[in-house]
């Protein structure tokens, strides 16, 4: 198989008893790529990772790592390192013994073990902790040791199973950046499972958004955010999530989207499907709260409307406004220092380019 692919998954079938998780999963991961598997719980992302690690048996299909068919190999022989959500450090061993456990099992010589442990400890800045027990470490330190355990084994592929979920918000931000720095430095292939879209957006070279055992979209964070292929992806990515307006599309030279009393010119919207001259029913327009224009900018927008403010949520840097647009709930984001009150009527506008349209089958138009 192709050389530039670090991992190739072909027609993978996985089932727990009667419950089929994947029917035919296919996925290629490029060498050195940081791929994030993103989805809500139960979408199969952790199952897929465990299959790659060899911790779950597959029913059918093949898994290739670095061109080698490893479908039936033991985890230790696959050239992978894995970092777990609960850290999974061996409680009775010192940090040093934790780091070297895998090497000793593989029969690596003593001085080589010492060298590699020292090197990993330096990269992760955990040298002072080497003689401590895991119980004496903070959550962030534990996760660093867990990453170190994968690091010392000098593997081709790093697998991360929601490694930051057990940490508090500040630590999560810091370790996220450390993992990104580690990747920039090592350039290993990394596969990272998470349900947190911010982690996915910030870490990934490419994101695979999964739902019910199917990959919905596999693309760069930029494309997933700006050009979601369907309504599910559009709603899943972005916080607060996208506003959806149901209505009718009128084709022609200057296509217009009509929803209730609103008629919104589509300007230079780049259609990905061919649309007819006539009306298309069951169309949904998606507008991200942060792409709604406000104040001076709204005045110059192609589409303008008045909304009634219902709830104002100041979040420091930004303020989120829950309002009513032509009888439908509509959310938008304004600058953090702006003081709005419930009941105010304010003017908003839509940017001409930053919108998404979906057909009746929820696919991008």
């Amino acid at each position: 198989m192709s050389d530039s692919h670090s991992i190739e998954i072909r027609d993978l079938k996985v089932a727990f008893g009667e419950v089929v998780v994947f029917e035919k999963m296919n996925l290629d991961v490029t060498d050195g790529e940081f791929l994030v598997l993103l989805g809500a719980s139960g979408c199969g992302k952790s199952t897929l990772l465990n299959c790659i690690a060899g911790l779950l048996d597959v029913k059918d299909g093949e898994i290739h790592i670095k061109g080698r068919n490893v479908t039936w190999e033991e985890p230790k022989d696959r050239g992978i390192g894995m970092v777990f959500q609960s850290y999974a450090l061996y409680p009775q061993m010192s940090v040093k013994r934790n780091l070297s456990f895998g090497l000793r099992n593989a029969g690596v010589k003593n001085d080589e073990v010492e060298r590699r442990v020292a090197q990993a400890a330096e990269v992760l800045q955990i040298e002072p902790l080497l003689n401590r027990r895991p119980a004496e470490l903070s959550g962030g330190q534990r996760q660093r040791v867990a990453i170190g355990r994968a690091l010392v084994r000098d593997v081709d592929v790093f697998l991360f199973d929601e490694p930051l979920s057990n940490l508090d918000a500040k630590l999560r931000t810091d370790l996220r950046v450390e993992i990104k720095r580690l990747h920039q430095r090592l350039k290993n292939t990394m596969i990272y499972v998470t349900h947190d879209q911010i982690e996915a957006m910030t870490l990934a070279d490419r994101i695979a958004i999964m739902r019910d055992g199917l990959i919905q979209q596999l693309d760069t964070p930029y494309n997933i955010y700006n050009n979601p292929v369907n309504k599910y992806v559009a709603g899943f990515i972005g916080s607060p999530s996208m506003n959806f307006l149901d209505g009718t599309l009128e084709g022609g030279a200057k296509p217009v989207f009509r929803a209730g009393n609103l008629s919104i010119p589509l300007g230079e919207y780049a259609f990905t499907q061919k649309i007819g001259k006539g009306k298309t029913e069951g169309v949904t327009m998606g507008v991200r709260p942060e792409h709604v224009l406000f104040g001076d900018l709204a005045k110059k927008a192609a589409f303008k409307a008045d909304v009634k403010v219902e709830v104002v949520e100041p979040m420091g840097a930004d303020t989120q406004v829950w309002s009513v647009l032509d009888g439908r709930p509509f959310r938008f984001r304004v600058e953090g220092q702006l003081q709005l009150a419930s009941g105010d009527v304010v003017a908003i506008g839509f940017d001409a380019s930053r919108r998404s349209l979906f057909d009746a089958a929820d696919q991008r138009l």
Partner: protein
Amino acid sequence: MQITIPSVIVSLAVASVNGYALSYWRFKGSEVFFTILIIGSFIPYQVMLYPLVVITRELNIFGTLWGVILIHTIFGMPILTLLFRNYFAALPVELFKAARVDGAGFWGIFIKIMLPLSIPIVVVAMILQVTGIWNDFLFGTVFAGTKNWPMTAQLNNIVNTTQGVKEHNVNMAATILTGLVPLTIYFISGRYFVRGIAAGAVKG
């Protein structure tokens, strides 16, 4: 003591491996095995007596030390295996996964990772088994053999015994002796014991 020590060691060794295998290694029939164990732990001893006697006779170890050890191991098995299984099941499964990725096998994971973590439950199991075996022994030696009555009725007989003061004292001494052994073990291992109880509330 001759009976107790080897019995306890053998039953604990077998039960801990059973519990570990049941928790982590899904093999064919493991669910069935588990169900049998659950039922087994509540079957009264009497149901198993005859088959066991026959088996030990066939193996030519009936009445020998090894026969007694085997019987105690089998009687203690369901409850001890469940104890270990529940304890291991309460440990994070990711620990087991991490060890597999790190290249440890069935015995490697058991000996290097799981056993060092199960000292509390080993102590609890030990106390259970020592108490159980000791009680069996003492009941047989001291209390059996007066009349065909329920235990509480027998008590009456013992206290009402007309066989003189000497017999009474023997019973008293035996009773105190009986209590002493498990209690000593308990006090020595108190710290681990309470931890074992606390850890996942494995055994009431």
